[in-house]
């Protein structure tokens, strides 16, 4: 699945709900199902700053694709990052680097997940792209 396709799928899933609360309920469910990060990466080194809640993010390269795992102490943040992982994990570094995510606007959470320092969405995406950048350079 490409990044665009993954985004499309998420948009479709969210389109079922009109209500903010239902969307959040769904987000919370996503958060609960996020595969947790290996405890060894749950340290300050992997902490993303700029979030009101803590987010740990780790990535490794496997067969030329970036595999992300993450965790957060807040469940909604977990939900948000689980969406980002669905979109980015398993993609090539270059694709991640050039991706211009639109699903956030389209699932109707824009006002809530705005580039506001407290939810750290911007920091999360930045960090994921940074990983992609590093892997790209390593690959040559």
């Amino acid at each position: 699945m490409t990044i665009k396709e993954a985004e499309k799928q998420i948009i479709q899933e969210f389109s079922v709900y009109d209500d903010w609360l239902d969307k959040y309920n769904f987000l919370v469910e996503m958060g609960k199902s996020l595969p947790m990060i290996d405890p060894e990466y749950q340290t300050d080194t992997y902490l993303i700053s700029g979030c009101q809640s803590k987010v740990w993010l780790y990535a490794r390269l496997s067969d030329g694709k970036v595999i992300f795992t993450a965790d957060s102490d807040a469940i909604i943040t977990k939900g948000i990052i689980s969406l980002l992982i669905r979109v980015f994990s398993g993609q090539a570094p270059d694709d991640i680097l050039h991706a211009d995510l639109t699903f956030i606007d389209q699932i109707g959470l824009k006002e809530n997940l705005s580039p506001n320092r407290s939810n750290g969405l911007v920091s999360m995406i930045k960090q994921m792209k940074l990983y992609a950048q590093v892997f790209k350079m390593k690959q040559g």
Partner: protein
Amino acid sequence: MFLSFPIDRVRADFPILHQQVYKRPLVYFDNAASTQKPVQVIDAIRRYYEQDNCNIHRGVHYLSVKATEAFEETRKEIREFINARDTREIIFTKGTTESLNLVASSFGKRYIRPGDEVIATIMEHHSNFVPWQQMCLECGATLRVAGIDDRGMLNVGELFGMISEKTRMITLTHVSNVLGTINPVKEIIAEAHKHGIPVLIDGAQGISHLPVDVQDMDCDFYCFSGHKMYGPMGIGVLYGKEKCLEELPPYQMGGEMIKEVYVDHTTFNELPFKFEAGTPNVEGVAGLRAALHYLNELGMDNIMDYEASLLKYATEKLAGIEGVRFYGTSDWKASLISFLIGKIHPYDVGMIIDKMGIAVRTGHHCAMPLMDYLHIPGTVRASFAFYNTMEEIDWMALAVAKAKKMLE
């Protein structure tokens, strides 16, 4: 008593409260961060710009004289509001944070030497913690920090035990912005003065909830912000005893704080101007004046009574939700509640109840040392103003219960 509080008339004065957020009526419980403004304040600002706007002091023309007079009249009214002895003791700043930085910086330059100590408390807001901490680090002095008990009350005994001949200043908040605790400032000041130690009170959360009498309290400095007392942003006050302010060196340079400038040296103006550098926020002062009038008309005692009833009711309501833990349960408490539910992260609670129209603050509330002390990542804080209602509290309790169900 609070039954007689004119809540409907009061609410009508605050335009912002009558809006819908996510198709629900806004419930604004983030008053400790910043209060909303009555139409009287908004109108005063408009009127200022439509009729009086001008740079003040040195001008001789009509507008400038008029604006200067209104500005200096406000200084008198603030003197009265906190019962300072003299208008020379009222300095306009941009807010509490600036007032605190001013004192920490000027006091440090004048008095702090290596080995000296300053005493603060673990419940200080960063704005009354970091300026002292950094000043101490620069001067080779030590910041000592008194702790709290299980109910979030200051360990006064511990604080007194820290006083020694090395102590140069005690700085503490009047009311904790996280715990709501009202500190026994009068008792602490009396003890400090026995040792000749000055005391600064951070009044950011005190000024809007309690009648403040700086002479009765006998504090040496008292700081507060306009925007937390129904006035405009960008304006605040530093009160200091004349004797204390006289001895401090000026802080920022330029504007009315200057007497004469030569190429190689400068002489400074007298109080209160000595500490007012640059064009002052005349608009902010005009708005603050309207806020003072508003508070005076309602009466701080009435406000206190009504807010106490809000606090009591909200505490009972939230206590009815299983798993809710309160942070700060002092008998002497201003109208705010910090809480957590089970293992739920405060951010999650804030996000969900926001969708039900309720604005609370979540996080560390600029009091990270306190969060570390309590071993929590933050709290959910609902802070009440006199325009809040029992019905809003009912709705919050419902919303919190719903969030709990969703998030558990």
